[in-house]
């Protein structure tokens, strides 16, 4: 049953103008032409160890590296091809990680391999966790293997599962597009996870500006346990802390994440990967990305194999104008990469090719209060910056660990101060000194 509740919002944040036709183009495939470098380590886990050798032919979905460790994830070949070498590669988050380089062979026919038979409609929780780990499904929210998150959740029960399609940063549309193309699969996956971990409520969140999407979802949701929630697409609505606050009214203590409060947040791409792993036994080898930016000639949503280099993506979408900055992720939170050899991973959400870059010369804080007014979690970023610059020993009364690193403070600062950087550094420092466990109220 779909249920529209009041449309709650949150204080602060920033409204980006979203073009009305955003995400109207269907998802296109980028079939790799250049060699893929499948990274063997993602997130914080240890690297997987290769089980293939250079020169060996691989089939799509074939296990190419397995993880000895429970925290690690296996890797699978996204396409048919030949292993060129066991080398190293850069991802946006980490430099010089081990990788298996596969030269795709589009001519050779090889049957896709699965990681196991399809599970039943109401699978056992242990089966689901095992399957997600075997398929290498990683949750973009939290950058952690989903199987691990679910295993942890068995100790602390999860009440809510939220599949989020809201992307309130400019340009990003991939989640909304995936939901629009496969609404039933998303709902199936949400219900399957919800059943496996015994969640009380299932939610699909959509931007309340996407009227067509809401209408079609209302039809799909009829008679199903998943609830549809339309929320304001004000940035950073998709941040788990804010999402949980606006949707469920839960205010997380600083430094806690949604999982600590018994809420599992997934993006649409991850939910679909779960569905494919459980229903079809398919490993997590592809990711749907928003490819955009003012330098991209054919921006849109693309389904990209893990390990594809940004140069390959760039060649596919074409360039118009000079390329000055390439951002992996959104314009607000993404990372600028130094070169196009960086590869797409299972957690990449977007690749943006920009022809301009902006760097304001900072002047002193003019105490305008814009950062305070716009901070969605109620911090005083200007005070965090001065605490950081003064190397203040104890900044705990400013709660740097509450920062969700959305970057709105830096965006609205008329003095062009690096407020986000200061908050991130203070947060990292606070994390060292004061572990999350010690902050419980």
């Amino acid at each position, binding site marked *: 049953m779909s249920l529209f509740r009041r449309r709650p919002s949150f204080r602060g944040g920033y409204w980006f103008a979203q073009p009305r036709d955003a995400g109207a183009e269907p998802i296109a495939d980028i079939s790799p032409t250049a060699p893929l470098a499948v990274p063997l380590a993602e997130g914080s886990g240890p690297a997987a160890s290769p089980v293939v050798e250079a020169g060996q032919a691989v089939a799509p979905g074939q296990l190419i590296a397995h993880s000895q460790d429970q925290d690690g994830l296996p890797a699978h070949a996204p396409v048919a091809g030949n292993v060129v070498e066991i080398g190293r590669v850069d991802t946006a988050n980490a430099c010089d990680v081990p990788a298996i380089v596969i030269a795709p062979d589009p001519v050779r026919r090889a049957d896709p391999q699965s990681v196991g038979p399809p599970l039943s409609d109401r699978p056992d929780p242990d089966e689901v966790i095992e399957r997600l780990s075997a398929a290498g499904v990683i949750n973009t929210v939290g950058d952690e293997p989903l199987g691990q998150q679910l295993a942890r959740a068995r100790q602390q029960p999860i009440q809510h599962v939220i599949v989020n399609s809201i992307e309130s940063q400019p340009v990003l549309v991939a989640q909304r597009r995936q939901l629009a193309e496969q609404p039933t699969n998303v709902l199936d996956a949400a219900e399957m996870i919800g059943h496996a971990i015994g969640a009380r409520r299932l939610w699909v969140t959509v931007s309340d500006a996407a009227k067509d999407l809401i209408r079609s979802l209302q039809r799909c949701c009829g008679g199903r346990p998943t609830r549809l929630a339309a929320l304001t697409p004000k940035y950073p609505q998709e941040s788990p*802390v804010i999402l949980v606050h606006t949707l469920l009214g839960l205010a997380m203590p600083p430094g806690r994440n949604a999982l600590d409060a018994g809420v599992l947040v997934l993006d649409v791409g991850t939910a679909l990967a779960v569905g494919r792993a459980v229903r079809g036994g398919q490993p997590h080898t592809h990711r749907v990305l928003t490819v955009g930016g003012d330098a991209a000639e054919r921006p849109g949503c693309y389904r990209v194999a893990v390990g594809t280099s940004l140069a390959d993506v760039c060649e596919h979408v074409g360039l118009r104008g000079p390329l000055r900055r390439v951002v992996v992720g959104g314009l607000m939170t993404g990372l600028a*990469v130094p070169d196009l050899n960086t590869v797409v991973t299972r957690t990449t959400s977007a690749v943006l090719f920009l022809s301009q870059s902006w760097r304001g010369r900072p002047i002193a804080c003019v105490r305008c209060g814009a950062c305070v007014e716009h901070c969605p979690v109620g911090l005083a970023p200007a005070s965090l910056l001065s605490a950081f610059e003064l190397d203040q020993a104890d900044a705990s009364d400013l709660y740097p660990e509450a920062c969700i690193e959305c970057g709105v403070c830096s965006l*609205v600062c008329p003095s062009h101060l690096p407020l986000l950087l200061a908050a991130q550094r203070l947060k990292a420092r606070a994390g060292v000194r004061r572990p999350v466990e010690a902050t419980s109220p």
Partner: protein
Amino acid sequence: MSHANQTVPSQMPARLEVGAAPHLAPAISYTESIWTYIAMACLPLGAGLVVYGLAAARVVGLSMVAAVLTQRLIGVAKQQPGRTEITHSAMMGLVLGLTLPAATPWYIPVAAGAIAVAVGKVAFGGIGHYFWHPAALGRIAVQVLFPEKLSPDLWTQGANWPFLARGHLLTGDLARTCVADHYVGWRETPLPSGCEAWLAPRPEQILRWLADGRAELTGGADRPLLAAVRDALPPWRDTVLGLTGGGVGEGCAVALLVAAIYLMYRHHLRWQIVVGVLGAAAAAAAILPIRVAPEGSGDGSWLWLPVLAWPEGLPAGPIYVLYHLTCGDLMLVACLLAGETVTNPITPRGQIIFALALGALTVFLRMYAVPVCAGYWALLAMNTLVPLIDRRTQPRVLGT
């Protein structure tokens, strides 16, 4: 691994730029904010030019030049050229000029501009670090240093606050002044020949006389408000358009409000400040008592809530409150000075407290304490309290 075999698009640079998120142009810049303030300060300046003639341009020009030169000299001495600092000083000099009366000796705007920048701004460390509004500080400094030039005698006609008369706007000579026997309004009072400017009591002073219970205003009756509103004060069209004596930019409430609305629309000024100052000033004027002197006997009594006075079918009380809003320095403080971010509390909640206290304090000082510059004194006083307000109005962090 290498991608040597790949065709890399021709627009590809050898190396990409890296930098921290967000990868977007900043939404707003302080330099733009300063320029917008300068542009908007030109509206009351234009009104001042009309009402006070070219003398107004002279005063504002001198204070701006003094401010910019002071900033430049200090910049040379400290070997710190700063274009933003100079623009900012020019803005402060301009706003400072708006607070000064047009008929002043040349050294007063010069001293005010130099003090505003050297003492009020640079001594504290420049943009972002000063404690009091530099322009208000410069204005108060010359008020204290040259009281005989800037303080009109409270009980006479206000010797040095002339304004141009009918037919002589913009081009008249402020030195050829006349004192009206009974000034009833800019348009209504007949102008003696040979005169180009009026010397008339400023409405602000008449409001002060009311609070003091001055005998002529009570007119022997117990309705001082009626006497003031009907006879003593000029028509309030004059105070709204700025056809009264005063600082160059203080008079024209319409120009100031237009400037403030544009600044708010462009997010360079918080509405909380303007609404708070004007609202609190109106409330204070509505509540604070005026003195009613009964005939013949001593001190008289206080009339609280003057806003309720409605003698002989004339809404004298509400009109009295409107006069408080439109005359004197209150409007200039509310629209152009109080919103200065460095000397403001940092949270919107703190700014509301600041603005409310500023508006009420201005009216209080005007009625019972300093007869001129009440708004600037109140602004400096509230600037002093900003750290206290900030400490009490920190935002609440989510989940704490």
